[in-house]
């Protein structure tokens, strides 16, 4: 029973957001990883290849790829196909810029041993409080 589970990280950017989680344990490659016109993940070999980040809360360990990583999320948002929030296991410089440019709620920097990418499952309904860093599983995927 994961419903009601709370993960406490650091509030990186408020406010709160509720939505469906898209969990990417290997992050998403920036360049050649996202189609910024559609929000579709196009990275070869990605577990969610062909799915869209649009309207989802992205749960990822950190960024992956070039210094322009944040630009792809910025461009998705400009095209109306961006995500609605972020959960990063550990904040890094490119994640920080992605949150900055998209101005989306974000919780990050979870304690050692707390891995949002394994506790949260794809399709879970979660609430991310970007002020306090509290992430709660509101509904498990199967119950939705």
């Amino acid at each position, binding site marked *: 029973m994961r419903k009601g589970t709370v993960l406490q990280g*650091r*509030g*990186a*950017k408020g406010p709160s957001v509720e939505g469906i989680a898209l969990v990417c344990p290997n*992050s998403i490659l920036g*360049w*050649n990883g996202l189609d910024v016109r559609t929000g579709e993940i196009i990275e070869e070999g990605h577990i969610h290849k062909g799915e869209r980040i649009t309207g989802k809360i992205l749960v990822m*360990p*950190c*960024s*992956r*790829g*070039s*210094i*322009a*990583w*944040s*630009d792809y999320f*910025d461009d998705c948002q400009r095209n109306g196909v961006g995500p609605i929030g972020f959960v990063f296991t*550990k*904040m*890094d*410089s*490119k994640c*920080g*810029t*992605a*949150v*900055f*440019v998209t101005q989306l709620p*974000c919780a*990050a*920097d979870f304690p050692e041993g707390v891995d949002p990418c394994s506790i949260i499952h794809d399709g879970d309904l979660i609430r991310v409080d970007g002020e306090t860093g509290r992430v709660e599983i509101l509904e498990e995927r199967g119950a939705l």
Partner: protein
Amino acid sequence: MNVRLTPEEQAMLRGERGEAKRVALEKIVELAEILGAEELVPVTKAHLCCGSTASPADFPDGVLDKPEVLAMGYDDWQTLRKCKGLEPKEFQHFNEDTFVLDDVHCTDSFGWEWTQQTKSFYENNMAILQKAAEHGVVVGSTCAPYLAGWVPVMGEVVVTTESSNVLYCNSVLGARCNGGGGITTFCAAICGRTPKWGLHLEENRHGTHVFHMDCDLSTRQRWDVLGFAVGKRLAPNAIPVICGDFERPDTVKLKSFFTALATASGCEMCLIVGVSPEAQTYEMAMGGHKPAAEFTITDADLNAEIDALCHPESGPVDFLQIGCPNMTADELRKVALYMDGKQVKDGVRFCLFTNIAQYAMAKASGTIEKLEQTGAKVLTSGCILRTINVARGAKGIGLSAGKLTICSKSDQVVPVYYGTDEEVCDAAVSGWWEVKRHA
């Protein structure tokens, strides 16, 4: 969480140092809160894109003279895109104490014909760069600013939009640099501050993953593919330690290595034992930490990378490029020596990309003239990926940089070959790429 500000930063935030610095600093403080930084730090060097914001994707048909594109980044001088809330007229100058040098842009700095561009497109980009100079930018137009006098010393805090430069600064110079992105770099250059965080902090500057070299690393190409071999095995945000008994690398090898490593992994610091100032020994590199993982890189690993990069079947080529990152005047000299007495085949376009500082030195040394006598063209300030239209119409492409090869493969529908600088020269002379398998 509150970011601690110095009295000077507080004055800036109250608008006492001008509106531009106020807005930019507000954004840097916001970034600091997102990152979890407790304070800011002065930025003494910044390196960022200052030319037209047009990119190759804006010109799928190759037609450059589009009014809406020619207007990009000129009237507002990039503030609307890169520093929302800052009125263009309020932004007159980057931070006066910061050495701001520009990154590559979409044209050659000296012409438009060879690159298949138009005079108006070229002049528009030059006008935008002139505007940058009026804002305090030193126009060097390079992805390798350390080849243009932008050379931080150990401990100096810098920002850059070039991922290979992040690695070069942290790993070779011992400077302090986080990646980030174009927008936050732009704001940092205006207010002269960046969050003190990540690789600025001593405790984060130690190795995490150890790579033992059991391979030949005597050439630039071996270091280029080593970047991929290491990058592919690396966890995100890891700091690799390169150790073993190998020939000491120089600037040319390292700039290739870091470019490939950044492409493959997003890594921002790499400690090379015996070379990096913070890794004179293995123990120093690890700083008392145990490796999260260890790997051995063999010749077979590197050979597999070379084979994977290169198009598998021999064939004709008519566009060839060397220079990623931008070449040094000495690299140009060596290519001129190799090409001495040879001629680029009719119908084949062979270019060498450098920056305008190295170009001036190569010109003073007679190297440009020697190269042009062979039919090669020395270009500046870009590459096949950045210089719009430069490879348009090519039927076969040959390159000596793994990064360009990988990125070009997705941009181009024609065969893209990868080899050494010498193999690129040979193909320019013959118009044919003979594939050699290495595995």
